[in-house]
């Protein structure tokens, strides 16, 4: 049994989203723990003091109303969570995290096999967060593989393993293969991004040896050109595909695509995106 955690915005989630997280977790063979991101801390606004010491302070009077309103919204979210679990017989563990959502998720990810995130997760009522920053920060710091769930809740039908011959792209393929072995998609495709236009698949024999041990059949698709454009193009009209991407911006060496191509794919919110880094 795997330990799967899902980060959920306490004041902005739908029952369908919760059910879908649960379905994905079940398919992987996991036990789902929902981390309820309440994010009370980031609502504490730092207001400059009217003194020349340059320090900042929390102004309780100004923020009190906002905090109270947020607590009410969280209570509504909590109620919705429990009613959804009851109605749909979901056996989920819930953990409330009231602090910095990124730090909380990163800590939880150390003790998990996989982190599920909705591509649109954000604490929208906060002035300090937007979708991109929030997901990006988690991806940079996560200590387990992350699966980004698309807004269209389709079933996973195909694995698309992006590969450019680098260790990080192979590492992501290996991690996805090991973690998602129960999914058994109908199709497996290696999308080879021939960045140097060599016309040759890097380490074809070793790659084939690895994939052959895990999958009965797999296809190869080769593309040349700008990786993000090619990948997005390939993923068009392939609903239900799960695309793997190697390291997410750790260092130049370990980054699969040199220009943060995964941002574009992630933000296009097309498909399931599996991201991990060695």
């Amino acid at each position, binding site marked *: *049994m*795997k*330990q799967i955690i899902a980060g959920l915005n306490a004041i902005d989630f739908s029952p369908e989203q919760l059910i879908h997280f649960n379905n994905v977790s079940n398919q992987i063979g996991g*036990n789902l*723990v929902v981390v309820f991101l309440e994010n009370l801390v980031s609502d504490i606004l730092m207001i400059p003091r009217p003194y020349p010491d340059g320090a900042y302070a929390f102004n309780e009077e100004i923020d009190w109303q906002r905090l109270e309103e947020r607590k009410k919204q969280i209570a509504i979210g909590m109620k919705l969570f429990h009613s959804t679990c009851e109605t749909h017989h979901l056996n989920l563990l819930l953990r409330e995290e009231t602090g910095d959502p990124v730090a909380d998720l990163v*800590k*939880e990810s*150390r*003790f*998990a*096999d996989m982190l599920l995130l909705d591509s649109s997760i954000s604490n929208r009522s906060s002035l300090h967060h937007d979708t991109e920053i929030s997901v990006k920060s988690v991806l940079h710091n996560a*200590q*387990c593989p992350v699966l980004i769930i698309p807004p269209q809740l389709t079933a996973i039908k195909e694995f698309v393993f992006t590969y450019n011959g680098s*260790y990080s792209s*192979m*590492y992501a393929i*290996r991690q996805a293969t*090991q*973690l998602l072995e129960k999914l058994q998609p109908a199709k497996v495709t290696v999308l080879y991004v021939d960045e140097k236009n060599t016309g040759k698949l890097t*380490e074809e024999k*070793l*790659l084939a*040896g*690895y994939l052959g*041990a*895990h999958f009965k059949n797999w296809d190869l698709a080769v593309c040349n050109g700008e990786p993000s454009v090619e990948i997005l193009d390939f993923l068009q009209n392939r609903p239900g595909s799960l695309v793997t991407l190697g390291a997410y911006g750790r260092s130049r060496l370990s980054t699969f695509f040199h220009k943060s191509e995964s941002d574009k794919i992630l933000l296009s919110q097309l498909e399931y995106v599996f991201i991990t880094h*060695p």
Partner: protein
Amino acid sequence: MKKIIAAFDGLKFSESTLAYASQVINMSHAHLVGVFLEDFTYTSYKISDLITKDGVSEYKVGLLEEKDKNTRRQSVELFEHTCQAAGFQFNIHRDQDIAIQELIHESIYADLLIIDARETLTHYEEPAPTRFIRDLLSEVQCPVLLVPSSYKPIENIIMLYDGEPSSVFAIRMFSYMFPFLKHLNTEVLTVKNNYESLHVPDNKLIKEFIKRHFPSANYQVLKGLPEEEIIRYLKGQSDHTLVVSGSYRRSRVSRWFRTSMADIIMKELRLPLFIAHT
């Protein structure tokens, strides 16, 4: 089906590597690749063996080369016959370039590497950890099972845990590679200093995580210096114990591995050691 590689020096064939690989393959039904490191710079003879009173004897060179060729062939045949008799799915790679580079490269495309902890890939004897193993561990790209020179079936598991991401990562990878060992006696071993409590670091989170993967695991917390206490504790364990440990001196050094716990374990003990690092 996972892909496991077992590395051999064909001139000094490690029967224990084959025996441990056989135990793992029998239980996991994985695909086994015998990687025979036939480094062109490595022979069983020394340069001094070639010199006669008339200088270097071409005849002697030919004889010794033929002898090495035969020894290597016999090792491959022994591996092949053993796998055939056991009904394993297997294949053989005979790598003739620089051994360390070949093996690191092979490890990118493997789920696990099994190798004798005393492997030197030279004709010299070296105390453990050998230079070859140290170089391998600092660069290897998949988890490694280092085995002692004599085979003892694995019956107990001790997982070293210090709260650092690397130790959790090792446990996580071990659970993916050896799910069939979950029923064995499993212990999570932590060492804390004399002023700390007896709680394991991140008590709640690690116990929840371990429960999913090793439901019957016990916890052992010792006090003192990790380098001393772990060795003392492991010396009291049976030869059938497998040790799981985290990072092996990479850029981000974990607290336990400042002096490389894995080195100390290899030097002081003859137990199989599972190492995985990010």
